[in-house]
């Protein structure tokens, strides 16, 4: 069932260039520039949400229910009269935070599991079967079950989105470890009696950094999408917190008379995820062309 792990072969990429030239090469990649620019703008909007918002995002104003976008309510109002523009600004905070947090957790946990599996034959078979099992469960359903059982909360949602992402990272790291440990310099290090932790730290870990950065951006994109979907289905962030998914969930009942409640936050999610994906593709092309946007990176 598992997609064949991609062999990881050392190769000449921007990663081999000196730091300064590598940085310049990155900035010539249109995907990287577009992705970073869009994300910076969204980050600034999120940080400045309190100053940029027109109204308190959770203020209920029954008299202003379902108003179309206008000079007063730029993106219209929802069924409780809350200002969609102000809510979208605050929602950006939640989405960016969740994307970043999930990517960090998935990368760290996947790195540890991948290193252990790649280095200890005994645990390898067991760990990888467990990873296969986790991957066989559809992401959204696994997350839904975890949120249902643990009660809604930002932390629960982060963990619920991160766990299904871990196997992808673990398999990537494991494939790097398996190929790097055959390299002559690692054999030489073993030969002169370098302790295992030092080999891991000095020789194996550096080789995982480039693929992990790329995988991390894809994970971040997936996490932002998954949060929106979970909240939209009613199994996500508590409804009192304005997240992009929650704003859209509130718009479901009234979509035919007030489509803006769903379409504007939807556009924000799509734009952010697009920026992260394009950034990931750009980084991959520059750092590590061998990680195909292939089977393992898709959900």
């Amino acid at each position, binding site marked *: 069932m598992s997609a064949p792990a991609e062999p990881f072969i050392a190769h000449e990429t921007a990663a081999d260039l000196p730091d300064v030239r590598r940085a310049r090469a990155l900035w010539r990649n249109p995907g990287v520039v577009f992705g970073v620019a869009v994300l910076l703008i969204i980050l600034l909007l999120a940080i400045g949400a309190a100053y940029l918002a027109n109204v308190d995002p959770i203020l209920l104003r029954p008299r202003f229910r379902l108003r179309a976008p206008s000079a007063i309510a730029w993106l219209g109002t929802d069924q409780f009269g809350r200002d969609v523009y102000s809510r979208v600004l605050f929602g950006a905070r939640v989405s960016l935070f969740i994307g970043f947090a999930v990517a960090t957790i998935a990368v760290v946990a996947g790195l540890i599991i991948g290193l252990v599996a790649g280095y200890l034959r005994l645990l390898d078979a067991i760990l990888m079967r467990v990873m296969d099992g986790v991957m066989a*469960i559809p992401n*959204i359903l696994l997350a839904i079950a975890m949120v249902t059982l643990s009660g809604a909360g930002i932390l629960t949602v982060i963990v619920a989105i991160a766990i299904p992402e871990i196997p992808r990272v673990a398999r990537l790291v494991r494939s790097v470890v398996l190929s790097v440990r055959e390299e002559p310099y690692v054999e030489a290090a073993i030969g002169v009696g370098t302790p295992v932790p030092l080999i891991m730290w000095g020789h194996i870990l550096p080789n995982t950094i480039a693929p992990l950065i790329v995988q991390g951006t894809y994970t971040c994109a997936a996490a932002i999408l998954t949060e929106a979907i979970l909240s939209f*289905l009613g199994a996500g962030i508590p409804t009192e917190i304005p997240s992009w998914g929650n704003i859209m969930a509130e718009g479901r009942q009234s979509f035919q008379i007030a489509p803006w409640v*769903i379409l504007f936050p939807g556009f924000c*999610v799509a734009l952010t995820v697009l920026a992260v994906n394009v950034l990931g593709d750009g980084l991959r092309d520059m750092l590590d062309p061998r990680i*195909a946007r292939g089977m393992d990176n898709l959900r």
Partner: protein
Amino acid sequence: MGRFLAGRVLATIPVMGVVATIVFLLLRLAPGDPAAILAGDAASPEHIAEIRARLGLDQPILVQFAEWIGRLLHGDLGTSIISNQPVTTLIGQRLEPTLALATTTILFAVIVAVPLGVLSAWRHGTWIDRGVMTLSVLGFSIPVFVLGYLWIFAVAMQLQWLPVQGYVSFRQGFWPFLERLILPTLTLSVIYIALIARITRASVLEVLGEDYIRTAHAKGVGERAVLTHHALRNAAVPIVSVIGIGIALLISGVVITESVFNLPGLGRLTVDAVLARDYPVIQGVILLFSAAYILINLAVDVSYTIFDPRIRY
């Protein structure tokens, strides 16, 4: 071949076992008292105790596990906390719309995506290629439900060409049935098309560099015949494989698409169960979908021998 088949079928057993164990542990390892969470905020102690007893949470964990596996092997997925009906019955009632949507989506996606991918590889580096690949990244980035609402907004509300929501069984007429599946199919297939087109392009592009393609060109085989007979045929294995792996994507998408378009399928069943905290139903649907994913990928692996006769197990 027989040995390969047997080995491959046996290899699905540990994965299914892991899935069953994970689903079992999810409920038992949940922080806090899962019975209290499932019972809701305003539950009486009696109600919580009743749920605990019904889920068997008051027994030793090993006893619970043995009973759980035993029931699973007999095809018993438990009973709903809310409606008291067997989960298998509930699933059976909801199977048709989901199967219908999944079938139309897979068919439509393959019919659209494979030619797009081949075209993209054939015209590699041109604006056609860039256009297809840009659309593909876009397809990965738009949340499925936003796309669904966009279709509803444009096609059903503005143009009024198609009904907004709902489902009609094919037994009540083929056109009404198909008419209500068009928008859901267009919604759900986008991400699948993006995925298949991308892999088709990469796979065909690799094959197009092979010597036998040059030979085919040299001996005067037409462009179309080279693409379909020589290139696509040899690029088929990764494409078929991604269609199988993409089923995971499709399953998550079905849940969302069904709630946008009000289709009474397994996705709606899941979402309703989430809102009612009906854990046995959620658990049953997860097991069913995971098993479907594992079995479809088993079929895909076996099909390699048909697509690439060089693969002999």
